[in-house]
């Protein structure tokens, strides 16, 4: 079968991806092509490699000779940082979730009816919010959409949104692994985005959690069904470990119909999450927090251009 995609289009999209300048339609096209033609990643890697060569074209400057001695002295005095597994990783998730699953199985019969009603209500609310947003005068800022909160259970999520369940499971696994769940350790968002970009789709305007007390631990590439994404792990002073996902849009796995409105899923006795989408990517922040705490957390989301 003849490939209908001209090579120059392939190349142009790959270049735009490497440069981080694809618009949302182009990003969707890129993701579609990358799914159908995995060799697009080779094109991306070649162009990324070319871009990474630019520093070597610069005419050299030398630092002051004294900087070497200063650095060696500082290194000799520095105490190596010990990186133990995060205390959160000690949480007995398996036991807790096993118990929850047992209780939920018994209660499922009654709850299914209730949650289906709740789901219908949420869908109605989402539709009303979209209608409300559409009716707003264009001069009004549309940057503060209303939030939707659903209190539900792990079982309900599993039955309805496998994608959400997969994200929650991934978060739990990362808690267990602690720092070992971080493939690329880095505390610098830009640096991390640059290192992850050649391996997975990354939005050009990237949301990050920016609060002084939040420490970025690093990131990893992860795959949910056909969707590729990255997980950024943060350590928060008061709320433990937080996983921040950026996942390319895909039909699979199934997620709620996300918009820029933030959907808070408060899951009984388990980690909760906030989910939204910007048209190019799905985003999820998962942690062991209440909906109110999650709202406080998402107020720290800041967009940076990567």
């Amino acid at each position, binding site marked *: 079968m003849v490939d209908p995609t001209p090579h120059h289009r392939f*190349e*142009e999209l790959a*270049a*735009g991806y*490497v*440069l981080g*300048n694809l618009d949302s339609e182009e990003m969707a096209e890129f993701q579609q092509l990358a799914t159908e033609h995995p060799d697009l990643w*080779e094109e991306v*890697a*070649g*162009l990324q*490699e*070319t*871009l*990474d*060569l*630019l*520093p*070597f*074209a*610069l*005419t*050299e*400057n*030398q*630092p*002051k000779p004294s*900087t*070497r001695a*200063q*650095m*060696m002295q*500082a*290194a*000799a005095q*520095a105490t*190596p*940082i010990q*990186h133990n597994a995060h205390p959160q990783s000690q949480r007995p998730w398996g036991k807790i979730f096993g118990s929850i699953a047992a209780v939920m199985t018994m209660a499922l019969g009654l709850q299914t009816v209730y949650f289906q009603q709740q789901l219908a209500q949420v869908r109605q609310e989402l539709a009303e919010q979209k209608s409300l947003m559409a009716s707003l005068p264009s001069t009004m800022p549309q940057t503060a959409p209303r939030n939707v909160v659903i209190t539900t259970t792990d079982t309900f999520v599993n039955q309805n949104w496998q994608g959400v369940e997969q994200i929650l499971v991934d978060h739990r696994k990362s808690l267990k692994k602690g720092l070992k769940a971080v493939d*690329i*350790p*880095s505390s*610098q*968002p*830009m*640096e991390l*985005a*640059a*290192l992850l970009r050649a391996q997975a789709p990354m939005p050009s305007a990237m949301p990050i959690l920016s609060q002084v007390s939040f420490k970025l631990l*690093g990131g990893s590439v992860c795959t949910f069904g056909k969707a590729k994404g990255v997980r950024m792990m943060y350590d928060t002073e008061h709320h433990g470990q937080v996983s921040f996902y950026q996942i390319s849009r895909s039909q699979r796995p199934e997620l709620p119909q996300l918009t820029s409105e933030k959907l808070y899923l408060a899951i009984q006795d388990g980690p909760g999450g906030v989910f939204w989408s910007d048209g190019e990517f799905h985003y999820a922040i998962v942690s062991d927090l209440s909906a109110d705490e999650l709202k406080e957390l998402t107020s720290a989301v800041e967009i*940076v*251009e990567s």
Partner: protein
Amino acid sequence: MLLKVPQPHPSSEENRPIPPSQYADTNDLVAAIKRQELDALGYLFDHYSSLVYTLAYKILGNSPEAEDLMQEIFLGLWERCTYNPSRGSLSSFLATVTRSRAIDRLRMKGNRRRIISQWQQSLSPNPSPTPLDHASQSEKRQALQQALAELPKEYRQVLDLSYFGGYSQSQIAEQLDKPLGTVKTWARKGLIQLRQSLQAQMEL
């Protein structure tokens, strides 16, 4: 196809004699740093400080800040070596980390001290001859500079502003007073042509 451009060797080679390496390869060097062997840090600095400093200086625009960032990067590797040799060369890793942190610093300050016009010559070919006694390093730089020189000026300028300046494409469009679509196209074509030109040189 990936470029078969050899990764540049540490750039300090041009200014000081390199002692015979006590490290078999980068894995060996990284392992020594993880064992907290100060000699390994010294070796790393001697071989890569010029690359890190040059790039930091280019982005930050002044020597004290560039030196500060350079120290931060080397001490960071000393305290917690995050480099994984299976993911690419050490020089590319250091270049990526340096660029990202330098641009993070610029953004944190919200201070873009340099204006566009000052960037216009920065990726232009260097007219001064490269010392012949460092042919390997200079050949690589010449190959890149030649490939850049073959690009239309607009392409080169947009790549320069985007890569070293950390400007978004819309900021570049605004400052150059050109449509956003034009700026995006220039950047993409510039990158594609640069790759093609380097590939052609490697095939000669």
